[in-house]
Structures are given as C-alpha cells and as structure tokens.
C-alpha cells in the first residue's frame, strides 16, 4: 500500500540527469525569451522574410516547437546512457 504505485529501484544517475535537465531547460528558456523579446521590441522584424519566403514569426514559431521535440530526443538519449552507465553495478536496473 505504501510507496509508489510501481516499484522503483535506486537510481544513481538522478543527480546527473537533473543537472542535464536544468542545462537544457536554460537553453530553451533563452530561445523562448528571445521570441518574446523580439515580439515586444521590434514586432515588425517578425514580418521580415527570414528563410526563403517564410517570415521570422513562422520560422521562429515552428522552430520553437521543433526545437522542443529535438531537445527531448537528445535528453532522452543522454539520460538513458547515464542510467545504463551509473546503474550497471546495481541489481535490477531500471526498465
């Protein structure tokens, strides 16, 4: 009854993963803040052609969505590697 709904093993990679998460989070905040700041300071810039026929608003907006997905995959790959490396000696690895 007590404890998680699913049993968790000790995770030795938790702190490394958490630091990695924070780093990626900060990178994304900077890019996201850039979008907000440009919209505020120079909204006309958003209407300028940026890549090919697409304006900056479209490229930046799509870019923020695609960046989130790409960074998600990178984070997962790095975390999985950390878990496999650091939890090797533990019995019953996660997953």
């Amino acid at each position: 009854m007590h404890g998680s709904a699913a049993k968790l093993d000790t995770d030795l990679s938790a702190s490394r993963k958490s630091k990695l998460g924070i780093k990626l989070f900060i990178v994304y905040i900077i890019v996201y803040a850039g979008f907000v700041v440009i919209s505020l300071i120079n909204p006309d810039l958003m209407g300028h052609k940026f890549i090919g026929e697409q304006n900056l608003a479209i490229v930046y907006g799509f870019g923020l969505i695609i960046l989130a997905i790409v960074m998600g995959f990178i984070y997962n790959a790095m975390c999985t590697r950390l878990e496999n490396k650091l939890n090797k000696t533990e019995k019953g690895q996660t997953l």
Partner: protein
Amino acid sequence: MIYSVSPWAIIIFVTFVALVLLMSFFFARKTKSVAGYYAAGGKIHWGVNGIAFAGDYLSAASFLGICGMIAFSGYDGYLYSIGYLAGWVVALFVVAEPMKRLGKYTFTDALDARFNSRSIKLTAAISTLVVSVFYLIPQMVGAGDLVVPLLGLPHWAGVVIVGSIVIFIVATAGMTSTTYVQFIKGGLLIIFSTILTIYILNNGLKLNPSDEYHQFISLETIIEDGEITGTNNSNYTIERIHETGSGLTFAKLNNNGVERWFKLSDDSKTMHEMLSISTLPNGTKLYNGEPKTEAKFYQVGHLTKIVVNGEEVDQTGPLGPFEYLSTLENSELVRFTRVELRDENTTVWYQNPTLGSAMLKPGLKFKISTRSGATFWTKLNFVSLMLALFLGTSALPHILIRYYTVSSQRAARKSTIVAISAIGFFYILTLYMGLGASVNGVLDLESSNMAAPLLAKYFGVGIFSIISAIAFATILGTVSGLIVASSGAIAHDFLDNYLKMKMDDKAKVRAGKMAAFGVGIFAIVLGILFKGMNVSFLVGLAFAVAASANLPAILFLLFWEKTTAKGISWSIVVGIISSVSIILFSPSMYDRYGLPMTSAPIPIDNPGIISIPLAAITLVIISLLSQKDNSSKVENYHLNQ
C-alpha cells in the same frame, strides 16, 4: 447561425461512445485496488501513456479554441500553441522524473513526500480542486456548444450527456479506462487533423470559397451639402447614421422593410455591407434584419486578393505547406471585427481588410507595436500570458497524475517525449486549420469555437461528422482526466491523508468513485450555468492559477534545500488568491460584468507576471522564518540527490 443535423455525425458519435463504455465495463472488472483506481496500477506502456498525455492535454481549448482564435486573429492565436507546447519542456527537463520519484497517486503526494505535513495536504488538495474546476468549466461549456450542431440538442443536453458518460468512465475503472479513452481520442485527433490539413492544402487559396458564399455588396453614397442623403441603389433608404466613439461610422439602411447595417468608408464615399444581430424590445433576435430561420446570418471569411509570383490570380490550386503560408502572406483577406452598439441593442461585424502579412505575425489581438497603440501595460500583459503558458503546463494536476501510471522514471521520460512530439505536431497543424477557416467562408461570427468543425464541413459531411465526433471525444478525454485528479484530491489527499479516515482498500476505492460522482454532478451544473463563456478564456485562467499556486512550490521543493512545509503551503495559498483576484479585477472581467473596461483597477488580464513571483517570494520568506521545522522533516525523501 443555423446548423443542420447530420445522421452520420450521430452514428459516428454513438459508435464511439458505445466503444468507450464497453471498454470501461471491461476494465472495471480489473480495477479493485487503490493503485488500480488512481494510477492504473502503474502498468501503462510509455507509448500509450504518451499519446494519452496528448489526449489529456489537447482539450477543447486547443482544438476548438486555438483554431478559432487563429481564424479570427491570425498569428496571435498561434502564440497559444507555441506557449502550450513550450510548457512541456519544463515538464520534461525539470518536473517529470522527480514527480515520478516522489509521488504515489497525486500531485499532493509528491509535494508532501519530504514533510508529511497536514497543511501541505490540505492546501495542495484545494489547489488541485481549484485548478481542475477552472479547467472543467470550459470543457463542459464546449460540450454544450458542440452538441447543438452535432446532434441537434439544446446546450444543457450536451453538458448532461458528457457529464454522465464521464462519470460512468471514471466511476467504473478510474485511471485505466480514462487512459485508454485519452489514448484513442489523442490518436484520432492527430490523425484526422492531419487529414483535414491535407484537404486545406489541396484546396489551396481561392477568391470565391464556394458557389453559396454570400457576395457582399457596396453602395455609393450620395452626399448633398455635406449630408449623406441616399445611395446609388434606390432600393435602400437611409434610416440612421450611427457614429461610434472610436471614429467608425455605421449606417442603418432599409431595403424593402428589412433593416440592414452598412459601414461607411473613411472618405464617406462608399458603404460596405456588415453582418448584424439586433435584439428587439420584445426579446426577439433579428439576424441581418430577419428572423434566424431565414438563414441570413452568413458564414464568412474570404480572400480579396491572391498574389502568386507577382501576379494576381483567382485561385492557386493545391499548395505545399510552406507555399500555402508564403502565398497567404502576399495576399489580402477580410476579417470581421465585432462592434457593440449598446444604444441600438445591436452587435455588428464590419469587414476589416487585413494583409496576409499581418495575419502571419503577432499583433492583431495583442497590442505590442507602438503603431497599434501599445502601452507598457499591454506589453506586460503579453509577457505575462507567455510566462503563464510556459509555466502552467507542468503545474496542472491532471497532467501530473499521468506520471504515476507508468512503471519507472525512464518510462515517465519516454512518455513525455512521445507527448511532446504528438502535441507539437498537432500544434503545427492548428496554424493551417485556423488560417484555412479564416479564408474559406466558414466562420460563424457568433461562435469562434466552431471554426475547425465548420471548416471540416466545407470539405464534406463525412469529415465534418468525424471531426465533430472527435471534438466531442476530446472533451470526454480531458474531463475524465480532470475528474480523476479531483477525485484523488478529495478522497486520497483530503479524506484519507488529511482527515486520516480509517478505510480499507475497498472503502478507499469507493470513496474515490463517490468523489468522482460528486465532482461530475458539480461540473454538469457549472457547465449549464456558464453557457456562452469563451472556451479558451477559462483555460488561460486555469493555467495562470496552476502556474502561480503550484509551480513555485514544485521548483523550490526540488532545488532549494531550505524549503519548509509552511513555505510551500503559504506559497500555494498566496498563488491562488493573488492570481484569482487579479483576474476578477481585470479589464476582461469588468467587460463581462457589463462595466467599462477602463474602470478596472488592474490594467492587465493575465496575472502570471505578478502572481508567480509573489508566490515564490512568499515561499522564500516563510521558509526562512520557519527553518527550525525542517529538523523533523522526513529524510531520504529522494535518493541520491
């Protein structure tokens, strides 16, 4: 406007509901334990959980609200898509794994894991309920709105149908059936939105959306001695000229006994037809001067100029996804802007010619450029919205509980990535669905929420039926998740952990089911009371309250060792109270109360930029003042960190 009921829509909808109910029966036999009821036994596959996340998250506000907002205000509606998706980055990088590590069934469990404090149990349970109820209302209102065109039933019937089905889903098999409903609905929503987008691109851009599209007329004015005395069309006689405070001039004309409203051009030389709804003293409503049944309140939204390679064309033929945007950027379209004429008891929508390039950058809805009259406060409002969207997602209790349905932290992380990919892809599609609705003559000016389903109808009754049934299912999925979260807050956090009621496993599950039943009934009542409320408005509110009440607590708990139980509880309380009060005294709410917007004591609508820091500062101060409490905190709350 008037909707005709499609039998296919009814068949598809009933089939879907029957499947969902059968599934709930099937899972109900397996749901006997508390872990089974609240967390599906922690046995959901991460892939299923990821799509279920999407099904849970993509609520009526995303599908109906955002598409409608893009159709009416262009890129500014799309800002919601960007912000709602960016919020998942916070969830993935910062919140997902610790939440999984610390919690058991609810968000309160995770916050309290380290302290075992009664005040956290109480405040976090209340915060879960407040956020979930704010989120529930627009879903129920949306259900009522949808059922009118889909099944031809009155608004309240839609609310009651959704409420009863959801109570059944949750009360039979809890989180397991909820998860599969959300999985199926999330999958269907993404597949059929993709199909709808393919239709839009294939259709390309054309000046005349369809043969039935209303051709708006313009009249030349006759001016004598500086007075407008008539028009070049003798069938129309001028009844009244109405000047608004904001420099617009409208004219009420009489055409063979039917009153129609026109807008005068800036040079007063021409008059352009408008759409109007007037309320007569006896309460009857006239749509463009005639009873509703005459169907003279047209669906609108059209292009006035399409430019391809520097040449004007009538239609483009099929376009690629990028070509569609760049062609639209060089074109011009007509939006319809609403003006309330209070002394005439009339609402009019005038044709507002808009450059395609303005539709594809921020600024039509939010005033951010100095040219459009931006002030410090309108800019702050914009920042505040972007902040609340970014920080709100990972503080929504009904999203957080989904982390307890998978077996490990790794599975929690993987399902978040599936969710981000699915949701991100869907949000890219919202731009096409919204813009498609704005130029194909499908908009119902009375209800922006119907933009996406009505666009589907333009392409055929088959896809309309499926899209409407999915929109309905969208509401079922989200409401189920909200009710599980609320029932957890009442039965698990409050009755079991806070009041420490003596219950065995069976009694706990029964308490959860009864709580679900109670919240469900409450949601039905609210859904009927709040009829007519904008769907995305209250969801924005829920995000702001969640970001203010829950996020500082989560972040400080994870990253600041000195955080105390009192600090967390007070920050939740301050977050709820400050965000809700700012909203209640905001210009938008004053407009709803029927008071002038300028008289609102607080000049911004979005509270996040004030209430989130306020909650964080409260947490820091109270924690520093109550340091000695931490000597008794539960050690080793999380391992190896």
